[in-house]
Each structure stands twice: as C-alpha cells, then as structure tokens.
C-alpha cells in the first residue's frame, strides 16, 4: 500500500502496547459516573410523564416538600431565571425543554419535576408524592403518520427556513441535494428498481446509565462530575440552563461506560445542579436503565424510498432517495446526514437526495455512531443488491465499477480527496471470506458504508517533567482506549518510551475548550493536537540544546529522543537526550511544555465494506450470523487492536440493529420495552468472531494519515445482513429489525 515507506518510519505508532488505564479498569478501581460520592450528598430522583403528549395543567409539590427526608424539589420554574444569559435560544432552549418539561410533556418519560432527598430510597419514594394534573393531548410516534395532514402538531413554529410551504408543521428541516438529471439517467438504465424501507429507532445501549454529582452554590460557582463524551459542552449547556457563567462551573468527566453519541448532551446534569442550588448540598442522580431507554437520546427512526437505475454491465445511471427521519419531539433528526451519506460511495452522474427532519412524540434523538448514515445505507445497498441479483452481477464488481475515488464529485457535492474505497473493495474481494463456499441454507451479503468523520475544537497541553517523563492533558474522554493512542503519538514525536508518558483527561478548569468525543474525532483531532503539542515542546528542547552548545537553533534537530547537531556548521556534539535537557530546565529557561489550541479541519472521510454469512431458520424465522468480516479504511491505525475493536463493536451494534433492537410504542404512546430483557442487545452467544481488515489509505489532512474509525463500522451492517438474509431465505426484507416474526411474515407472504 501507498503508506509502506511512511509506515516503516514509525517506532511506536502501529504497535499494540497495554493501555495506560488498563490496571484501573480490570481491578474495579476506575471511577465511572455513579462511583463518586461527596460528604453531605443528597440523592435526586426525577418524576417523568406517563403520557406521550399532554398539557401540564398544575404541579403540586407540597406533599413532597413536606416529606421529612426531602431537601429540595425543582420544576421548570427553577430554570427559568437566567440572570447572565437571558433568552435561551435555539438548541439551548431545546435542551432545556427536554431536560425539564415546560408547558407540555412531549413524550413518555419526559421529566416534569425532580426532588433531592437524603437517600436514594427516600428520593424514589418521595418523588411519587408530587402531584401533576395533565390534560392529555393526541399524540403521534410514527414518522409517516407524523407527516400526515391530520397529525397532531407537536410545536407550532419549530420549522426552520428550509421547509417548503404546505408541509406539515412537524416537518422542521428539509434538505435536498444532488447533481445531474435523474430522469434522464433512469431513461438510460436497463433496469430501474424502486423500493421503500423502514427502520425503527434503536438505542446506543451503553452499559453505563447516565450519572452525575453536582454542587452549585448561591454564589453561582459549581462543580459537576459526570459521565459524558464532552465535559465542555456539558459545562456550556448547564451554565446556560442555570443562568450562571460558564467559567464558574468546573466539570470533571468520569471514566465513561460507553457513549456512542448518546452522551454528547445533558439530561440529568442541570437537574442535579438546580437541586443542589436549592438544597445547598451536593446532589447525585443516577438514571435507571428504564429511564435511559425512555428519556435519553435514541436514534431516529426512518421511512425511505430509493430508486436506482442500472445498465446491464452494472453501471449506475441514476439514483434518487427520499429519507424521512423521526427524531422525537425536537428538531435534530439527521435526515440531511442520511441523504448526504446514502449515495456517497458511488461515482454518479445523476443523483438526487432529499432528507426530512420530522418531530414525533418520542424522546429527543441523539447521535448514534455515524448518525443517519446506517438507515440510508440499508435502503440504498439493498436496492443495489437487488439490481445485482436481477442482472446477475457480482455485488463487489458492481460496487467497484461505480466506486468513488479521488477526483469524483461526491453525491453530496464536493470533490473527493484521496479516499480508500477502491482499496477497501479490492481487499474485500480478495478476502478468503468472499470466496469461501456457503453451506446449504446460508446466504452471503455485502454492503458499503460511508461516514464523514469530524475534527472539532481541540486543546491539548503537554508538560515535561525534570526526570524526562511527559504528561499529556487532553480534553476528550477516553471511551475506547484513546489514552493509549495519544501516548503512542506523543512517544513518536518525543522519542521517549510509551510507558514514560501519562495521559490525563483534564477537567474544564485546567485546559481550553474541547468538543465532545464524537464524530470519530478523538484519534484524529486530539491526536493531531497531541502531535503538534509534542512538536511544540521539541522546538523548545532544541532551543535549550542549541544554547548549551552555542550553535544556532536551526543547526539542531530532534532524533530518537535526543537533540543532535545537524548540518555542516553545527559542530561535533554528543546527542543530548531529553532527560538531560529537562534535568536542569529550571536553570536553563524554565519549565518546558507544548500546547495546541485550534480546530483541526480535514478529518478525512472513510469507507467500509462488510461481508456477512447468515442463516435463517424457516420454522422460527430466527437469523443467525455465521461469519462476519469488516474491511475498513483507517487512514493509519495508531493502536491497531483498538481500531479492530471499533470495527468489531460497530459490527455487533449493527447486527443488533438489523436483527433485534427496536423501540416499541403502544397505541397509548408509551414505550413498551424499556429494559434489557425486552430491548435485547446482542450477547456473546449471538455472535461469531468478527474478522477485521484494516486498510490504510492515508488521510492527507493528518500528519500520520489518521482517519476517524469509530463510526463508519455501523453503517454497512444493516444492509449487509439484510442482503445475506435475502440470499439465504429468498425474501427481501424492507423493514428493520428483521426479527423472527417479521421474517416469518415475509416468508409466508412470499408463499
């Protein structure tokens, strides 16, 4: 591969050392969200709406307040005063409305009041004493029904500029893009297939429920400990919702027990702070699993129409898709992302995509790994598979024929830089899985997937100690071993052993702003920042060496952890190791550290291909996945074991989404499966080993070529599995999840 010469230049990057926080995590010592307590701490509990849509007529908290263990009760009124930031607008307003209901409860589980009591049990008991009078309103939870003319209006005036006239007010954002002439393209095709697809909402299903411990005084100064993907966004949002200055709230991120996008916003954190302000004591809130399902941010559900035209030789002549995404009772469903990603793997002359953001009486959706992309890929890649089948073409060959490459005008507009789709498809085709014989009853499916990846605001600070070790402070919580990647990249630049570097997730008071750990940005952006901060420190190390030797600084270079003279006039000096420079840095100019504060742009898009073998039991309708291979472009794998882990984890979540997981709402608008027994995520015995191939086509936007790897892995599974099921059972599944009853129904319909 193109990187080979560059790869041989790495000493640490690309190796697989033990992660720095490994010991803490295998001994039970690591402190997660719910593991913290404080002297005098109270426990919070939240009262939630049992109705999907209801006007809140009256809240009577007197009985609860009279309870002997209760120290504070809050409702929306406790958030309304905003001395520093009057007029909460836009997303802040939405988040406030979601954190604590205003005039209306908008979904089953919507918070309406909260209390703090001296014990968790007392809090749970006393919260029931709060009396709420509701006027129940008609509700809607389905995306297509929410767009129908007679659908109840969730919030008048929520739509933005983009929505065309005459559309139902529940449609709040509209996206349309593409190029060429799709009608002309369809006319050129030998075969056109048009089909409709539906996916249900799923939940990120992180095993750690949301938890926080907050303290806020009457002086407007506060402390917050919470499990989050981004403590700066938590700081900013909580401060806005509580009307205090951002800098007066110090937020510390706990170890985080999974997020996948679901911990990129706040739910209980402002509530704990509001309770604390009232009770003047620290307040801890820990969600139950059922609260996590009912009242955090699942994915959007989707209803989609896709039409693709193909020539007999496999050339796609035109593609068109309409993607309607339901994202709960607030704007934000990623219909635009779905639309932009859906056809992104292909080099298309004629393409048009439309995305809708639709509100319904469900919890406010949050990001879930490549938000919006998996649904669109399910629809598009299913139709391509059907075309391949009808035209008797090899599915990988067809994708190769149409694959986007450097210079292709992407379906979403710009021209691609260097990308790794063709390389990934070729690796998939060459993989022994693709040519392995299938057992009777098995079917094989493949799918491509695309995701943008993200840079985002980033600060990193690196300080050298006098013994020659280094501490790196980053602001992106470590969800999947990122401390290890940071240490590897710092080691690479400094030339000191990986073990001599300690990476800490800094709190909001000790480092500049950092965006959340999302958009697969951590290894890319914090990595780039770590490299630059380390280089910054190296510059200073070279200056000290130059001063010692009495030569110009440009006659000093950094090699294998030492300053060495370089160039004809540098003179002859022994290499000066880092530790010797730091040993007396106090007397040669003071502490040496390096910084980076900027917004790295150029995250580099990535593509993946999944190959799946599946079997369907015709008696029960149960699908088993018998073999699974992930091929994905990582740009450059810093710690390959954790890159593999991201691929495997994405695939497993995708398998759950495809086969089992869904939000089930009753006619009453209540969520019917809010525990893990009923919302069943894949367990160890459901899955095979998940094979991985790391393709490395370097991202021109990163010094080591890194692309984000966290999200793309969940894009292909839905379609890959649906395609495998279609080949195994002979039925095209148009609705997810492909649960046994749905498969049985499809088999029956098929006759």
């Amino acid at each position, binding site marked *: 591969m193109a990187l080979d010469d560059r790869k041989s230049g790495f000493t640490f990057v690309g190796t*697989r050392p*033990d*992660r720095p*926080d*490994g*010991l803490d*995590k*295998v*001994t*039970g*010592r*690591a*402190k*997660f969200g*719910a*593991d913290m*307590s404080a002297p005098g701490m109270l426990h919070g509990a939240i009262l939630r709406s049992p109705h999907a849509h209801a006007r809140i007529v009256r809240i009577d908290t007197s009985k609860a307040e009279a309870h002997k263990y209760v120290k504070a009760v809050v409702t929306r009124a406790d958030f309304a005063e905003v001395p520093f930031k009057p007029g909460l607008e836009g997303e802040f307003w939405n988040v406030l409305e979601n954190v604590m209901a205003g005039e209306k409860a908008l979904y089953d589980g919507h918070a309406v009041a909260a209390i703090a009591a001296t014990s*968790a*049990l007392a809090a749970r008991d006393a919260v029931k004493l709060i009396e709420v009078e509701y006027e129940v309103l008609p509700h809607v939870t389905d995306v297509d029904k929410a767009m129908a003319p007679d659908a109840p209006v969730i919030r008048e005036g929520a739509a933005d500029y983009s929505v065309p006239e005459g559309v139902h007010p529940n449609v709040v954002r509209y996206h349309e893009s593409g190029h060429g002439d799709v009608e002309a393209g369809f006319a050129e095709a030998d075969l056109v297939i048009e089909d409709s697809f539906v996916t249900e909402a799923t939940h*990120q*299903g*992180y*095993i*750690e*429920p949301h938890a926080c411990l907050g303290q806020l005084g009457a002086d407007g100064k506060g402390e917050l400990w919470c499990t989050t993907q981004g403590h700066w966004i938590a700081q900013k949002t909580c401060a806005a919702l509580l009307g205090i200055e951002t800098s007066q709230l110090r937020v510390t991120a706990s*170890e*985080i*027990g*999974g*997020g*996948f996008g679901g911990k990129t916003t706040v739910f209980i954190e402002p509530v704990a702070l509001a309770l604390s302000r009232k009770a003047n004591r620290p307040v801890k809130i*820990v969600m*139950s*699993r059922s609260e996590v399902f009912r009242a955090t941010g699942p994915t959007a559900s989707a209803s989609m129409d896709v039409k693709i035209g193909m020539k007999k030789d496999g050339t796609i002549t035109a593609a068109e898709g309409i993607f309607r995404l339901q994202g709960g009772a607030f704007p934000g469903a990623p219909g635009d992302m779905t639309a932009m990603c859906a056809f992104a793997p292909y080099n298309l002359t004629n393409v048009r995509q439309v995305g809708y953001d639709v509100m319904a009486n469900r919890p406010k959706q949050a990001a879930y790994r490549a938000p919006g992309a998996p649904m669109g890929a399910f629809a598009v890649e299913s139709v391509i598979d059907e075309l391949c089948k009808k035209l008797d073409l090899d599915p990988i060959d067809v994708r190769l024929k149409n694959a986007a490459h450097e210079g292709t005008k992407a379906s979403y507009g710009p021209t691609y830089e260097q990308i790794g789709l063709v390389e990934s498809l070729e690796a998939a085709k060459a993989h022994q899985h693709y040519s392995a014989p299938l057992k009777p009853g098995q079917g094989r499916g493949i799918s491509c997937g695309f995701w943008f990846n993200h840079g985002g605001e980033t600060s990193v600070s690196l300080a050298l100690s006098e013994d020659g070790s280094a501490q790196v402070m980053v602001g992106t919580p470590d*969800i*999947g*071993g990122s401390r290890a990647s940071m240490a590897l990249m710092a080691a690479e630049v400094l030339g000191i052993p990986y073990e001599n570097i300690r990476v800490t997730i800094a709190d909001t008071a000790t480092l500049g702003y950092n965006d959340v750990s999302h958009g697969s940005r951590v290894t890319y952006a914090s990595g780039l920042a770590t490299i630059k901060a380390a280089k910054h420190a190296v510059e200073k190390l070279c200056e000290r060496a130059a001063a010692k030797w009495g030569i110009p600084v440009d006659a000093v270079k950094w090699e294998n952890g030492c300053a060495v003279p370089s160039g004809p006039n540098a003179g002859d000096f022994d290499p000066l190791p880092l530790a010797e420079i730091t040993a007396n840095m106090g007397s040669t100019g003071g502490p040496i550290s390096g910084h980076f504060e900027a917004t790295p742009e150029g995250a580099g898009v990535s593509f993946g291909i999944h190959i799946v073998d599946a079997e369907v039991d015709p008696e029960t309708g149960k699908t088993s996945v018998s073999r699974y291979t992930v091929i994905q472009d990582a740009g450059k794998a810093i*710690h390959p*074991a*954790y890159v*593999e*882990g*991201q691929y*495997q*984890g994405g*695939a*497993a*979540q995708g398998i759950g989404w495809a086969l089992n997981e869904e939000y089930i709402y009753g006619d009453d608008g209540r969520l019917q499966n809010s*525990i*893990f*027994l009923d919302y069943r*995520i*894949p*367990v*160890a*015995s*459901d*899955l095979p*080993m*998940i094979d991985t191939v790391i393709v490395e086509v370097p991202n021109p936007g990163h010094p080591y070529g890194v692309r984000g790897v966290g999200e793309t892995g969940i894009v292909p599974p839905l379609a890959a599995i649906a395609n495998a099921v279609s080949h195994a059972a002979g039925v095209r599944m148009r609705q997810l999840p492909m649960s046994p009853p749905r498969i049985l129904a499809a088999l029956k319909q098929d006759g």
Partner: protein
Amino acid sequence: MSKFHVTTQVNGDEVEFLCDPRETLLDCLRDKLNLTGAKEGCGTGDCGACSVTVDGRLVCSCLMLGVEAEGKQIETVEGIADGDVLHPLQKKMIEYAALQCGICTPGILVAAKSLLEKNPNPTEEETRYWLAGNLCRCTGYDKIIRAVMDTAADLREAS
C-alpha cells in the same frame, strides 16, 4: 426506616453494615462498603455488570438483597488480584484489548473466573454461553472470548 444489621465476608474480610430491607446487595457493596467495582447496568439481572460470587456461586448482585448476604462469603472484582499481582484473566484482558470503555469488565472478569474454576477447558461455544449474561456493548465480544480462552489454555499448561 428500620434497618438490619448484616455481617458478611467480602473478599476474605469480615464486614458489617446496616441496610434497608429493600436495598440490594449491589447497593450495599457500592454505597455502604465503598466497593464500587461492581456496576449497575440495569438493575434487572440482564446485564451482568454487577456480577459477584456468593459462596462460590455466580450471581447478579442487583437481584439479591443486602440482608440475604448475612453469613455469606462474597467475592467481587476487587478481590480477583492477589495483592499487586494480577490474575491471569486480568492480564489477558488488557493484553487482548478486550475492554474499550471497561464498564462491563468487572462483571466479565468475575463471570469468566467462575467459568474457569468450573471448566478449565471451555470450548468457544461454552465460553460464549457462559458469558451470555454479561452484556458488552463496545467490543462485539471477539477479543473478550479470545482473552478468556487463551487464559484457560495458559492456566492448563501451568497446572
């Protein structure tokens, strides 16, 4: 609230606590004994993050009441290492990168240790079924299963 006085053994140490009859063993371990290694992922016995052994049996501590711990011997993740020497399973979990976020890890370690005590030579299928009560959302289980089976192989060789 009238509380019960409970005396029990945790990781070999005798401990006492007062608990409400409604509090689970998990609540007591975490809130009264400060042993926060066992995690609450669900509270309904579905995730295994709270796994401990009670008199050698693997249980979900969220499904057992604190008062039922009276006179029992309880082992938690905090007791798996022998002082500062990690159990081979702990080492292998790190070496295989078998944890990403690590919230499931305490439960997986307790459950896997109990598997290897019962069955030193588990097949992949047996390992997968034994750990089917321990949810991991990050890893897809691949590296966890490999770490456990490789530990089993090492332990067999050593004995």
